[in-house]
């Protein structure tokens, strides 16, 4: 004796946001029913567990039927099968493409390949995100990556238009695509303390300043926001003069030290470490022509700059003041001719380090 078939179809498709979230999170129907019961829906509506089960199954089915449309969200607006009010459509899309920061942190910078997908069960076990949800998020990354790969124009805008996402979410996806494309190393132990939002911020900086599209004269190039500006990377080599020319290095140091004296408790450490730190930053710049070193950009920043500072117990304010003067003082060096490249490089590095300098 059992209910063999049980469906409910509304002219306007009924969707419960709570159930949608449970579905997105990869809970089974039974788990979802449990969660809802604990949430107390039953009490407020005088319903029984059977009712809840039936409702949950129904909603799950609806979501499964909608999922196909969510692959290309633009379709959702002009499909005829489900009558869904626009604000609901937006909610469906936004939530479908939302991801868990813990999960994305695990795959950030990895190749979005079948191999990575196979390892998702490990990721799931590690992060506590259900495998189903991991797969959905991974497939979303991959889908967005594939679509924008072939498109011309600004990355964030493309993502927003094609997937009808909010600005914030579109930017996050741009970061994911950017990281996946350049295969930045983010998984090393030393980088573990960094959150996805740290990386997303840095990605935004890189996209806005270091890519082909950042220069701005040609707006319609493929991958303009995904590939770093090769010319710029080449020019970065010129910065080496800051550490190879002894006079220049000393001059730079004295300028910075003069400006910092008395303004920070860590002055002694700054003075002592100046040459080391400066070498570190300039060397990172000079090596960026190698793809391998691009991938290690963040690990290098941490190893060559952030860790030494941290061991000297610089505060965030120390870091701020030091880097500001380090950056600006170079402008006063009369023999240093590469001000434009220096600004383009230091602007990004500065804000990245600011963002990354935390526990």
């Amino acid at each position, binding site marked *: *004796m*059992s*209910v*063999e*078939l*049980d*469906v*409910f*179809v*509304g*002219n*306007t*498709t*009924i969707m419960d946001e709570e159930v949608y979230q449970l579905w997105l999170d990869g809970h089974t129907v039974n788990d979802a029913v449990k969660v809802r019961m604990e949430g107390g829906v039953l009490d*407020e*509506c*005088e*319903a*029984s567990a*059977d*009712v*809840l089960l*039936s*409702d949950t*199954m*129904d909603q799950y*089915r*609806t979501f*499964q*039927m909608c999922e196909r449309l969510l692959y290309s969200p633009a*379709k959702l*607006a*002009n*499909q*005829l*099968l*489900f*009558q869904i*009010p*626009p*604000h609901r*459509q937006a909610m469906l899309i936004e939530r479908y493409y939302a991801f868990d920061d813990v999960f994305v942190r695990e795959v950030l910078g990895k190749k979005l390949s079948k191999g990575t997908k196979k390892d998702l069960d490990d990721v799931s076990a590690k992060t506590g995100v259900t495998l189903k949800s991991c797969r959905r998020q991974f497939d979303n990354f991959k889908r967005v990556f594939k679509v924008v790969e072939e498109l011309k124009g600004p990355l964030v805008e493309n993502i927003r238009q094609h997937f009808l996402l909010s600005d914030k979410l579109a930017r996050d996806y741009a970061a994911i695509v950017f990281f996946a494309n350049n295969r930045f190393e983010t998984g090393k132990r030393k980088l573990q303390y960094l959150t996805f939002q740290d990386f997303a911020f840095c990605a935004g900086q890189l996209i806005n300043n270091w890519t082909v599209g950042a220069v701005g004269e040609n707006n319609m190039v493929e991958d303009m926001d995904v590939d770093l500006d090769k010319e710029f990377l080449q020019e970065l080599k010129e910065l080496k003069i800051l550490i190879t020319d002894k006079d220049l290095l000393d001059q730079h140091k004295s300028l910075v030290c003069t400006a910092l004296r008395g303004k920070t408790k860590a002055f002694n450490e700054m003075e002592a470490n100046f040459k080391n730190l400066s070498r570190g930053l300039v060397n990172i710049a000079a090596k960026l022509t190698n793809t391998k070193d691009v991938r290690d950009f963040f690990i290098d920043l941490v190893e060559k700059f952030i860790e030494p500072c941290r061991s000297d117990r610089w505060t965030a304010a120390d870091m701020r003041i030091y880097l500001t003067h380090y950056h600006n003082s170079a402008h006063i060096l009369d023999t240093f001719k590469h001000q434009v490249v220096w600004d383009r490089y230091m602007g990004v590095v500065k804000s990245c380090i600011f963002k990354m300098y935390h526990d």
Partner: protein
Amino acid sequence: MPGKLKAKIVAGRHLPVMDRASDLTDAFVEVKFGNTTFKTDVCPKSLNPQWNSEWFKFEVDDEDLQDEPLQITVLDHDTYSANDAIGKVYIDIDPLLCSEAASVISGWFPIYDTIHGIRGEINVLVKVDLFNDLNRFRQSSCGVKFFCTTSIPRCYRVAMVHGFVEELVVNEDPEYQWIDRIRTPRASNEARQRLISLMSGELQRKIGLKVLEMGGNAVVGYLQCFDLEGESGLVVRAIGTACTLDKLSSGAAASINTHMHPNTAPASNACNSPSKDGKEPVFTEDLPSSSGPPTPFRALPTTSSSPPPFSPSKPCSRQSSSSDTDLSLTPKTGMGSGGSAGKEAGPLKTLLRQQTQTALEQREFPFFTLTSFPPGFLVHVGGVVSARSVKLLDRIHNPDEPETRDAWWEEIRQEIKSHAKALGCHAVVGYSESTSICEEVCILSASGTAAILNPRYMRDGCLDIGSSDHRFEEPSPPSCGFCHIPYDELNMPFPAQLTYCYHCRRQKVPDVLFTTIDLPPEAAVTGQGCLIQARLCRLKKKAQGEVNATAISNLLPFMEYELHTQLMNKLKLRSMNALFGLRIQISVGENMLLGLASATGVYLTALPAPGGIQIAGKTPGDLSNEHHILAIQKRINDTIAKNKELYQINPPELTEEAVGSPIPEPRQRSRLFRSHSESSDELSELDLSHGKKDAFVLEIDDTDAVEDIHSLLTDAPTPTGFYSCNTEIMPGIYNWTSGLQMFTSVRVFRLSNANLTNQGLNKIFTDLCENLLKSLYFKLRSMIPCCLCHLNFTVAVPEEELIQVAVTAVAMTFDKDQSQEKPGDRAMTKGGSENEEQLQFPLELCAESTSANNQPSAKIPGLQESTNVSSRAPSVDYGSFADRCSTWLELLRLKAHTIRRGSVKTSRRTQSLARSVSSSERCSPLPEGRSRSLRSTRSFGGSSVTVVKMTPLSFLPGTRIVKYLGIINMFFIRETTSLREEGGVSGFLHSFIAEVFAMVRAHVAALGGNAVVSYSMKECVFMENPNKNQAQCLINVSGDAVIFVRDTDQEATPAQMNTGQTCNSGTDGAT
């Protein structure tokens, strides 16, 4: 050559990938109408092809235009192998044939495949150039408007109600033809879809012809049904009410009252529209140009020797149909017999016509499929009349078979008519017919409400009424008049307890009133109404043929009786005294019968307060038993008290006499039911021995009774914030806001336990329905406070151990705070004046219509023939059974009622004012602006798809319907051979229902509409074979496509609501 159909294929989108290699599709389109086919070019390698074809032109008869759908097939071009079909679109072009409906069909249609479902969309433009055709012998009936709505459509005024029209056509079911063994499931499904589309078109055309013959221009309350008789064939039948409708100018459409007010002061005018004084009322200038001039039609019936196609006799018109459509498989011999029947009928008919012509009683079937009426139309209501008959099906291609089907219905209708007569009524309103088929057994059912309609409008030339009709000395007040008994008090057709009307104190009313119609808007009610259901299962032995039919027909009366007892108990438990919208469905399966009665219970202020329910034990000595009884009695009393509070039933005074009507005792039952064949006998046989008992007594003498009482009490109350009813409007709620959610829910329950008892089955069935309701409430909880209106349950027994319940209804939000505080007096007086003035509702009883309907004589030969046939093919008909609810009401002690009039008045006022608000237009109970600000008035602005609202009601709250675009009547089949992959049976049906909704919406949008009203799912046949991973489902839906505007909006709004094209014409037409 009266019509030119033009179609243009614009583009496609979201097409499926047909070529795996390229992940693309080379699509082209075939456009077919009748036997002509055009093709577009192939649009290579695109999933969003742009064809932008030329206009494909079809020159066709308007007859074909009515019958045939435009068939659009999207295919994938394949150089080396056969082209693959992607899917099809059938477009019914009927709405284009009526000048008042849509003028162009344009929009995106889902491309539908019976195996794969919706596969992309196609943009199509269709137009029709119709030439005027004055040929009076034509077979088409272009221009006759059809409405599913069972009331006078808003934005129309009725000039004349002509009466009942019916027709049926039969064919072989393609699924059962020999060729089905060799063709693909897809081909078979498509053949079926196409055939049914053709048959509906043909049926509609024929009904249209009848309407024209009667002098009408529209069919209201059009109800079309399919009987899938399996091996024996396919029957498509329809009934409706022929009317002459005048379109109100758009200004007047807003309020019928204002339209009428200025001109109608003199009552002598009452029958005719002010605009056409003195003119023949039958035809109006609004009649489409394609229909002929009025005179020939009026003249026709007198010349009964006119060519057969035009003969008013029913057999004749059927016969003509079978000869003129090559698709109809009715063998030629059928023609002959039909023709002869017609000829023989001729003289008899004339004779009849000469005898009596004017009175409604003389019509063959004074039936009306309408369920709500203009104020004053309905004078008295007698009660529910119903008839059922069990038949054995035989193959339809028997020459006389189509007539046999007709004869079956004829019998049932005659019975209904005689029941109505027994109730002292001359008409039946809220009339409907249905069937339930299992293998070769078929139960035919018909039911309606016996009524007396306003005698003033039954006159032939209703214009010259000197208002001299004194049959009713004084007009009864509208708020209670319909409750007054139509029959003679001293010579009552059945025992009932009569009291003086609690409202007007002048006339007698029964203690309980059951009807199949909607609550008249002007009726005075106390408190709110609620859905009341009686549910019943009866096991029966598996049997074949005649034995089976006999067994079923023996069971039927008992089921009806039990259902009635249940209804009565539940009604009393809710402290209510009337049922509206009563619908009793009895479904037959191989080993059981299911009965489901749904109605909306109401406390009519005019009727006496219902008595309580008393429990009595059989063995008075037993102490523990007595204890038990006391406990139950307390529970019942508590429930009644609780319900009174819940439904706000505070009648003016709880009269001193706690009277109710006792049910007949078991021994009496048997007698009662033996008499079902002859209604008059039945009446005399009733045992009135219970007249002395005070209250409704339930005797607990066995487990059955305990079970009954238990089930009575276990009906869960609706959760807080919810109301439910199965009628159009919820008594007691008048301030709707615009929140609207139409839905369909289907459940199938498998009984795994083979040896179930009736009790066990009942419990399962009740739980199934209750749980379904609970689920609905839960689903819709975000709409609270809201009311589920038009809750329409359909039960079926698709297989031996399956019970299927399908519900379609609409949830509507309302404003809780306003429910009781409507300003009263203004509305009250307004309502009153309306009644006088709006009675412009002549029933056409002129000679010709009478003759057209007077078929008994014409029928006789055919009837005899069919009886001969049926002696060969056994047909059982013991089962027809009259069911008059009031039959079971026992006499009340006719105590003198001393009623404090003052209190009565107060309650009456609050009620009627609120109600008259709803009656005035029924869609805008809220002040302007208010409805706007309320939740669920969503702006769908960003979407490129027109939002189409759907509702089973005839109106959308907070809106005004400015134009009816035509009837939507669609039939789909979906089949799968990969059931598991599609998510099992639930997944399969879920997507199919969603697809059906989508296709309905797309068609409405293409007509330029933004809503479907009076939507119903008339058929949902689901079959599965999980072992083979297969399932099949057939769905038939219908409704009226309309354009509505918000009350607060200006006329031009539909243009904005619509993404395009046709809106201009829409608004033009409306103004």
